[in-house]
């Protein structure tokens, strides 16, 4: 297996990332996988007993976000799969890259990020280096940011 993994979370900032991934798929003819990771860390500051229900709802929301990306790819004649994972964003991205032996990983960089995550400026470079080392996938960032 081989392919391109594009991790997204939706929103206007993701459009550049999605476009970059579609462009890369066109150029390389590799299969494209859009990934959305359901992460419930935000519940740690509030009620946490709704994990089962909210996880399902977030999963459905993620599918919806992936559908928008897939629709955009389809409009450019690029077939793409949508994959939903639950858990830590960084770990799930690496796991999927391993599973499909990805050649490329397309990542974005949120323009607004108040909480620290792997996509914040300080940690992103470290994550890129670690992922390339662990998975052999080349990490691609869209021009001008995106997510």
């Amino acid at each position, binding site marked *: 297996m081989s392919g391109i993994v594009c991790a997204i979370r939706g929103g206007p900032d993701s459009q550049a990332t999605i476009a970059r991934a579609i462009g890369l798929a066109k150029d390389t003819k590799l299969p494209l996988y859009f990934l959305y990771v359901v992460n419930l860390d935000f519940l740690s500051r509030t009620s946490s007993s709704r994990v089962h229900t909210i996880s399902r709802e977030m999963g459905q929301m993620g599918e919806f976000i992936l559908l*928008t990306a897939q629709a955009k790819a389809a409009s450019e004649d690029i077939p793409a799969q949508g994959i939903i994972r639950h858990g830590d964003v960084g770990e799930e991205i690496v796991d999927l890259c391993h599973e499909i032996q990805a050649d490329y990983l397309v990542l974005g960089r949120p323009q607004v990020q108040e909480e620290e995550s792997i996509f914040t400026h300080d940690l992103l470079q470290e994550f890129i280096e670690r992922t390339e080392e662990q998975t052999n996938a080349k990490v691609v960032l869209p021009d001008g940011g995106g997510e």
Partner: protein
Amino acid sequence: MSKSIRKWSLFAFLLGASLVLALAGQGTRAQDQPMSPVVSGTVQDSQSQPVEGATAQLRLAPEGKVLAEATTQANGRYALPAPTEIPDRLFVQISRAHFEDQVVELSATDMRELRNGESVAMPGTTLPRRITAAFWIATSIFVAMLVLIATGTLHNTLAALLGASLVFFVSYLGEPLSENLFIFGFDRALHYVDWNVIFLIMGMMIVIAVVERTGIFQWLAYMAYRLSGGRLWLLLPILMTVTGVASALLDNVTTMLLMTPITIQISLALGINPLALLMPEVMASNVVGISTLIGTPTNILIGSFANISFNDFLVNLTPGVLLAMVGLILYNEFVYRKEILAPGNEEISPLLLEKLEERAQITQPGHLLKAGVVGAGMIALFVFGEQIHLLPAVTALMGATALLVWIRPDIEEMIEAVDWTTLVFFITLFVVVGGIQEVGLISFIATGIGDLVGENLILAMFVVTWFSAVLSTVIANIPFTAAMLPVIGYLTATIPGAGNKVLFYCLSVGSAMGGNGSLIGASANMVTAGIAERAGHPITYAYFIKKGFPALILTVSLAMVWLLIRFLVLAG
């Protein structure tokens, strides 16, 4: 333990708890027959509130032999049996931690009555407060807990648990070193835990857990979309109304946890900015939630403390909430006018709409029907139960039990659905707040506010409402409300015309609607922002204040207008 044993254990527990609470609700405990002759009296603090747990001693001299000893009851009363042989002089000494000791000598008339075998009623004794090291420690623990919660350094429950543990740690390990380090003991701490609140929240959690799995929220949101035909100016008030009504019957956090993902999906299908719907929804949730007793934890606290019923909230607060809601809808139509007036997305994906419709299904119609029947019964009991002194907690527990017996869900899932961390939060919060009550901080705050507002009820209404609203934007409103209850109780007892409990409604309005002032003002805001951020539409602190703070001013002002009309004009 097998599943069936666990299941029936939970049913038995809920049933038992219902019975215990029902019996407690009767409140017709037989009074102890007074012994004769006795020396009796009452003890109160400087706010004229009865002091419970004070030691009253009958002595031969101020430092002399103790002839009899008793502890004051919840109403501050004590009764000391007189000795069989009456000496020349007798003294009553009252002592209690965190108060100055008081010694009162029995008058010549009292002594004569005792010698004639008659009981003596002493004049009320007022105990002045004494500030000790325990005062500063309990206050520091409370403030630290608020800071830890506000900054998100620790989970709410962990912060309150840490606070309660520190109170006990200082009390038990510090007392041997100095009695001034003693805050209160475990038994005394339990007096401050309001079990009516705990069981009401627990019962409602079980009901909500059943309802949230039926798909009703998703269906309602989709119906809102269908009804509006995708026109944002119409969709916005419909979704606000759906969210508001749901928040009045369920809790705000659950409502927003379920409404936010489906709202984002509708927004994606329509090609609009989800924040134009999410912000109005969460603001409506914070505003309309207070229209019923069970809509917010703060109302549950207020209702239990001040004995304000489900009907009282409906009659005295709901019209004000509706007024605020109308203002909030118009405000949001104005604030999001650009999104509303923007030309519709002409490329609405049929695939997305199809998916939306597919998901907007009632997944458990049978459960929804049963939950509807039980829910209607619960509402009826909330409304009419007051006539038979039925506590709301009993209604909630009976409703939860009925639903579980009728539906027979997976009991493991139901146990998981009860938010035990929240229940522990409330129990430990009561302990920490009890600590500051015990050492006198609440009394000092009450006296300070009392001095500020004097006997002016209108000024008191403004101060309580706006003080609560502004503070709720920066500190968690549940611990704030819990701490303010005795303060409001004092103001209600001392300000002429406040006996109708209007200041408690002011506290309800301020603490809940104040949540709209900032992102950290309410838990519902935080979960909405958390989900929106994970859909690529972050709600920043600045964005929330920009949209939310004007809404706070508008809605609190409108609710305030209603309270003034209701309690000053209509009440004559």
